[in-house]
């Protein structure tokens, strides 16, 4: 199946003297994490299906610096930002889409002050636009009537007030969208943000991802949907901890849509 993936790079577009419609910022998780790579591919399949002329930076992409900045290393963050902005501006990139809310937030909000001005979209917003423009159609397919809950990634939701795009997509699947006790602006963190992903949690009486997974399991979903590779890892681990992996799946919204059409 992977042979059919069309993933042109910015360098290739440049060589042909063309500009893509949008740059797909894959992100470190999307490039290297085994689980997140599946999300990346699902999203690419959708882009291919909708005939979107997109490009990736490939080996020219580098960490946005989000975990460095949130750890307190402003210097490393700004070094990363300067390098990435140089590459993006060199290619005269205007529009970026990413499946990682951390990359999304950093490029959208923190790069402009350092000379990087782009239109930045989260992949759920981009997919929503494709649907609205009729370039992509979704049918409920196998998710029709399934109980799906959406876990709001902090850096998409509270940080940037994007709550509806992922939900609109789930509704398009004719699924039954159910909400957790804490949702939207009151959504509970999965525990990965602020560079927590890369360290053990401080001493406490519970892991945050378990707390959040319990909130999700309380409403008995068949699928926990999310829009962030880190939330995905945390919720998947939470479901395993609660020994529910046979019953509850954790999936990215892009995977839901790609799977619905058997892509």
């Amino acid at each position, binding site marked *: 199946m*992977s042979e059919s*993936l069309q*993933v042109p*790079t910015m360098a290739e577009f440049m060589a042909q003297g063309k500009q893509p419609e949008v740059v797909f910022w*894959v992100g*470190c998780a999307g*490039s*290297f*994490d085994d689980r997140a*790579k599946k999300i*990346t*591919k699902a999203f690419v399949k959708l882009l291919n299906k909708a005939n979107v002329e997109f490009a*990736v930076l*490939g*080996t020219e*992409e*580098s*960490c946005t*610096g989000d*975990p*460095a900045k*949130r*750890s*307190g*290393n*402003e*210097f*490393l963050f*700004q*070094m*990363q930002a*300067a390098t990435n902005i*140089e590459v993006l501006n060199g290619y005269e990139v205007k529009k970026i889409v990413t499946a990682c809310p951390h990359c999304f*937030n950093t490029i959208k*909000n*923190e790069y402009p*002050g350092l000379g990087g001005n782009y239109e930045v979209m989260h992949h759920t917003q981009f997919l929503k636009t494709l649907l609205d423009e009729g370039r992509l159609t979704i049918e409920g397919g196998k998710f029709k009537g399934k109980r799906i809950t959406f876990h709001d990634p*902090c850096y998409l939701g*509270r*940080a*940037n*007030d994007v709550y509806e795009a992922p939900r609109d997509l789930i509704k398009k699947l004719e699924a039954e969208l159910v909400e957790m006790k804490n949702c939207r602006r009151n959504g*509970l*963190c999965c*525990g990965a*943000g*602020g*560079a*927590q*992903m*890369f*360290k053990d*949690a*401080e*001493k*406490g009486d*519970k*892991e*945050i991802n378990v*707390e959040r997974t319990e909130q999700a399991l309380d409403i008995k979903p068949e699928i926990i949907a999310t829009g962030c590779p880190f939330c995905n890892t945390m919720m998947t681990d939470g479901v395993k901890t609660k020994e529910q992996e046979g019953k509850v799946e954790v999936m990215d919204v892009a995977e839901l849509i790609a799977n619905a059409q058997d892509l």
Partner: protein
Amino acid sequence: MNYLPNILFAIILIAGLGYFSVNVKKLIRNIKLGKSKEVKDNTSLRWKNMINIALGQSKMVRRPISGFLHVIVYVGFVIINIEVLEIIIDGLFGTHRIGLKVLSPAVYGFLIGTFEILALGVLISVIVFWIRRNVIKIKRFLSSEMKGWPKNDGNIILYFEVVLMCLFLIMNATDATFQNLEAGNIISQYIAPLFNGFSETALHTIERTAWWIHIIGILAFLNYLYYSKHLHILLAFPNTYYGRLNPKGQFDNNEAVTKEVQLMMDPNADPFAAPAEGEEVPAKFGASDVQDLSWVSLLNAYTCTECGRCTSECPANQTGKKLSPRKIMMDTRDRLVEVGKNIDANKGEFKDDGKQLLDDYITREELWACTSCNACVEACPVSIDPLSIIMEMRSYLVMEQSAAPIELNNMMTNIENNGAPWPYNQMDRLNWKNE
């Protein structure tokens, strides 16, 4: 001799307001100890935020029970204070209920009647608040940072309000002229019978006593604010005005670092060049003490009324970690007050006291437990931002002390070397395409 009460009143009033203004000056000086930060953008949105959030209580009512009760106390507080105007005029000029001379009995009665209803509302709400804090024991009022003074402070404020409201109603109930007016004594008419059988002189004495204690109590309460969490009744307004407008995920970029990075990336820059004459010495990165925080963060600290909505929404706190965003704000204020006293004691100059906000107040364990999820910022009814303090302090730990947890150091080394937080080669970044 007739002027004695007026003079006494004037003295008390001037002393009360005078002492308060001395403390307000200190408060402003302490806030200005913070780093300068220009907040002059988007004034119309800032006014709108102040009107909605502080005046309109829009975020308070997100929790319906405490929100509703708070609105009653707040409206009561603001509106009943119109009555203070009359009390001050009466006190200074020896008049009695000057309002009756200016307004028709119907209008005056309507005003006082409204105040009485509100006073009863405040009284009931305050009693419910007391029960929530002391009997029902709602979790957010029981955290470790709420032991001792913070708990007492909360109760003292409630007692003050109970006493002031009771005095107001007693004052009206024992005022024969006012009761005979039969207008506006909506609540006090039911209290008046308690004083049946009292001589006219006794009634008058009670009325005068209540009147005096009421105004003295208000002035005492005003002066109590500076020492209490209750400053929010004033500071909520500037705090919501100066609150952040950017998306919550947008953290400030440090400009000093931007300059350094530009210099590093500039191939023409001379790495051995001496700094130009008069160039500023690069400031320290991040914050280890209150003076390193922005003045907005310090205003935040004075504004915090320790309601604990932030802490109750904090994922780290919910799962038993030491971090409590409310404690971050309380510690910041306590340290700021300590620094302020140090300055007072040393003729206007801060003498190193061997203490700082980091470690002596806020531990590293608390700082590293934060997921930067912004739940605390979202929860605050008056636009306080505990997260920016946490991030400033992390920044100090990493950039000045290289004291990040070891796993984070590994992650950062990976980013430096391979452009990813994990040890993968940057050249393998597109391998997923063919897997």
